[in-house]
Every structure is written in structure tokens, then in C-alpha cells.
């Protein structure tokens, strides 16, 4: 069966910078797929290539078997796009924004009216359909952008960080819409929120520096870390002194500190005894083994440095 999305050795260069480096990927139809990575990893570049906004420097990108470069117009008939930043038309009302989208997709007026009523109901904006988006909260604007991307019944929906900047209630509302769409289309999303990818997605790829690092379900990715020996360690005091000591120990692979509490990853279970010998037991308030989270996998693979 033709995959919904296929990238074959896609490279995108901006001058000397390689944003995407010979990236290959296939996404099966009906999947909720997440592409994770730190800022500048190349996620948005990949979405822009797949949505025909950018031409790759090399390689081939296909949507439902159609080449994004040679058959761009047909590709755009099949896709819905929710960009990172809301790009609603603030001079058109909520309903007019949706009508405009339908017109650009060549939909007939009768079909348009029915579809828009249905979508406004789905995203809970029926009562505000004649208001301008500027008067909406961030969550309502985001819901409208999602509705706009769905007007023409796309086969593939691209969501670029769909819940960034939303409060927890709005995030959950957007998640619910995404989940409700699962059976009717393929969903490709990028996100910084590990819990979002963990709870929503059938398949996750973590990428960095333009390349894929790992590929699998959330459970499979966490399984990679199951032998990582992550411990939470809390001290009664002297955390600064202990931080210095912990950082000097060669068998600690990663270390995160929150106040007096440390989250550390040991290179193996044989490292536990040397750790206890090094720090002693006098100042320890709590030590416990932690289940690895998707965030641990992400940090382990992409490092801790803050990206520009």
C-alpha cells in the first residue's frame, strides 16, 4: 500500500547550513506520527517541504504517492496545515476565514456551508462564528486554525507544534480533536511536549541536526532507556557541594538538578555502589529508581545544551 508520506534521502541546505541531511522516512496511512527534536533540528523544514512551501536541495518527498515538487497542486488538495504561528485573517470573521479556505479549495457553496457548520460545532465556535479572530483567546484561535485546515476533508493533516502557548485545558481540547480525527486521516505533528507525543502518537521519530536518531512507538523508545538506571536523589542540604561531586563521577551519564533534588542516569547497575560510597548516606533524604520517560529518551539523545 502506498504510504501516506515518504521522504527519500531528502536534504535541505541554506548556504553552508544543512537543515535536513539525507532524511528518509515512510509514514503509513491512518497513523498519528510525531517528529520530535530540539529547536533547529529540522522539523519545520521537513513540514515545509512536505507541504510544498520549500523545495528540497536533494531527494524526493511524496504525499499519498504524489511528488511535492512536480505535483504540488495535487498534493495541496490532499493536505491540511496548522502552522506553528496562527495565520488567520484578522479582517475576516471566524466563519469567513473558513469560507475563504473552502473557496481556495474550489468547494461548492452548498457543500461549504454544511461543512463549516459541522466544523464550527466540532471546535465549539458556533456561537462566535461572526466574530473576528482578534477577539478570540489563544485556544479559540488555535481551534479555528485546526478547523480551517479540515474544511476540505484533507487526507493528511500537518500540525506544527499545535499546542505551543496554550493553557492545559486548551491543549487537552486540541488533543481531543486530533484523536477524534485519527480514523479519517494521517496526522503528522511536531511538538516539544513529550506528554503530547506520548499520549497521542502511534509512532515517534526523534531527530537532531537534520537526521533521524530513533524511530518507534513511545513504549519502544522508553524501552531503550529501561536499562539506563535513572535515579532520583534528594539531599537534606549541601546540594551545591553534591552537584560538584556528582558531576565529577565518570559513571553518571546525565544529571538534572531541581533545587535539592537530582535526577541522574547511571551507566549501569554496578555504578550504584560506587555512587553511594562517593556521596555517603548522611545527607540523603530520599533515593529512588525512576521509570524512564520520553523526555529522558529525548534528553539522552539530543543532549542538555539550550539551542538557539
Amino acid at each position, binding site marked *: 500500500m502506498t504510504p501516506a508520506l515518504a521522504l527519500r534521502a531528502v536534504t535541505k541546505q541554506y548556504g553552508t547550513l544543512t537543515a535536513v541531511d539525507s532524511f528518509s522516512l515512510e509514514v503509513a496511512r491512518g497513523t498519528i506520527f510525531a517528529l520530535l527534536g530540539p529547536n533547529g533540528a529540522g522539523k519545520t523544514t521537513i513540514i515545509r517541504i512536505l507541504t510544498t512551501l520549500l523545495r528540497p536541495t536533494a531527494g524526493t518527498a511524496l504525499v499519498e504517492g504524489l511528488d511535492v515538487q512536480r505535483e504540488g497542486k495535487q498534493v495541496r488538495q490532499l493536505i491540511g496545515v496548522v502552522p506553528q504561528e496562527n495565520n488567520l*485573517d484578522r479582517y475576516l470573521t471566524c466563519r469567513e476565514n473558513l469560507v475563504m479556505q473552502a473557496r481556495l479549495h474550489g468547494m461548492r457553496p452548498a457543500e461549504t456551508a454544511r461543512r463549516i457548520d459541522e466544523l464550527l460545532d466540532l471546535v465549539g465556535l458556533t456561537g462566535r462564528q461572526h466574530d473576528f479572530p482578534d477577539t478570540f483567546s489563544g485556544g479559540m484561535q488555535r481551534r479555528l486554525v485546526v478547523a480551517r485546515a479540515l474544511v476540505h476533508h484533507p487526507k493528511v493533516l500537518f500540525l506544527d507544534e499545535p499546542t505551543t502557548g496554550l493553557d492545559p485545558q486548551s491543549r487537552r481540547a486540541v488533543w481531543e480533536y486530533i484523536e477524534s480525527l485519527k480514523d479519517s486521516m494521517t496526522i503528522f505533528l511536531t511538538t516539544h511536549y513529550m506528554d503530547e507525543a506520548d499520549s497521542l502518537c502511534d509512532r515517534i521519530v526523534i531527530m537532531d541536526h537534520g537526521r533521524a536518531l530513533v524511530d518507534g512507538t513511545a513504549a519502544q523508545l522508553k524501552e531503550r532507556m529501561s536499562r539506563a538506571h535513572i535515579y532520583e536523589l534528594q539531599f537534606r542540604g549541601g546540594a551545591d557541594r553534591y552537584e560538584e561531586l556528582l558531576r565529577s563521577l565518570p559513571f553518571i551519564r546525565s544529571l538534572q538538578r531541581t533545587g535539592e533534588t537530582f535526577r541522574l542516569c547511571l551507566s549501569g547497575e554496578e555504578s550504584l555502589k560506587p555512587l553511594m560510597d562517593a556521596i555517603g548516606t548522611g545527607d540523603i533524604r530520599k533515593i529512588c529508581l525512576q521509570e524512564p520517560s520520553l523526555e529522558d529518551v529525548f534528553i539522552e539523545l539530543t543532549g542538555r545544551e539550550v539551542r538557539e
Partner: protein
Amino acid sequence: MVKGAFSIWKRDMLVLRRSLFSELVAVVASPLTFYLAFGFGLRGYIADVEGVPYTVFMAPGLITMTAVSAAFDESAWSMWFHRKVQRTIEAYRVTPITVFDIVIGKIFSGFTQGALKGVAVATVIFLLTGVRFNPAHLAGYLAFIAFGSMVFSCAGTVCGTLLDKPETIGKVQAVVIMPLIFLSGVFFPVSSYPEALRSAVMVVPTTALFEGSRRALLAGSFDVQFLAILAVTALVAFVATVVIFNRKMAE
């Protein structure tokens, strides 16, 4: 291709309709001020120009100036706003329409706004000042306005496409557009230029626009050479704008 361009044009007209009254008041204020200040304030100091009172001489140029300035402003600011601020151009680009639809829709929106605002100023000048023209001259005059608005709409679209900072668009208006308009015969005939300069000025498209449209409206003379210069400029500007926009979008 036409359907997408028409949808964009229709959207722009819907937005214009919502603020039509305030837009027209704003657009009429400036040429009317020029008309009153120069036409009446200097009436005692300026004799007839090319055989007609100065107020009559000036009126066609002011109407033309309003139309083409509005075409430039609308195209430049609309394109810049939709590209840089609202990012609606990107929203259009992930639909099945082409970049040609977008640029053509925007050019025609600027053109329509120019034409509407020119008509508004003409109506006000006719109503308030008693300046009268032979209705038979109107067709020739409108031909010049149509090509002129197209040229300025294309110029505005190019500015809105290429310039990222709004202040740069303001500078282009101050340094290029206004001098081109003012020095091309809105307030004085090009025969006032020194002999050596005149032949060069005569082939500038804005001279063809202002001088040609005035002659068409006041004397009913249809200067084919002027119209040809303007038509060729409009065609070249249209093709260049489409190519420039297409290239910019491919970046």
C-alpha cells in the same frame, strides 16, 4: 488560475466594503487639500495654463494621482501585511491555488482600489468645484487611468514582496513614487521643462500617464504614443511582478 485570483480579489473587496466610507474620506482629503490650496490659494498669482484656468488644469492630474497612489499603497501595504504580519500568503500557498493566483489577485485588488478612489475624488471635485468635462472624453481618460493603476499596483506589489521593513516601503514612497508623480505634470505642464530635458521626460511612463490623461480629459485628444508607452510599461510591470513574486516565494 482565475478562480484563486478571483477569491483573493473578492476577499479584498469584502474587507474594503467594510471600511469603504472611512477609506474614501481619507483618500479624498489629500487631493482636495491640494486643490483648494493651489487652485484657490494661488488663483490670483497663476494665469491660465495651456488655455484653461489653473483649477481646471490641475483637476485631472489630482484625480489620476489619487488613483495611482491608492493602487500603489494598497498593493504594497497589503502584500507586506499579508506576507510579514498576518502570514496569510503562507496560508494561501498550502491550498491548491498557485502563486500566480495570489499575485494576480493582489495586483487586481490594488488596481480596483485605485480606480474606486479615483472615481471618489473625481466626484468630489466635480461636485464641489464646478469643474466640468465633456463626458465623451471620459473613455480615453479612463484608458490612461486603467494602465496607470496597473503600473502602480505592480510597483506596490513588488515593494510589498521584496521589502521586509515597513519603513523601507515609506522611503520608496517618499524618494521614488512621490517625485515621479509630482515631476510628471500633476501641477505643471511638461512644456515647462528646459528643452534639453523635455524629450527625456516625455518618455517617462508617469509623464505619459499624467500628460496623456490630462490631454484626454480636457481636450479629448487621444495621444497614442503616450498610451503605447503606458500599455507597454503595464505589460512589462505585470510580467516582472509575477516573476519576482514567484521567485521570492520559491526562496
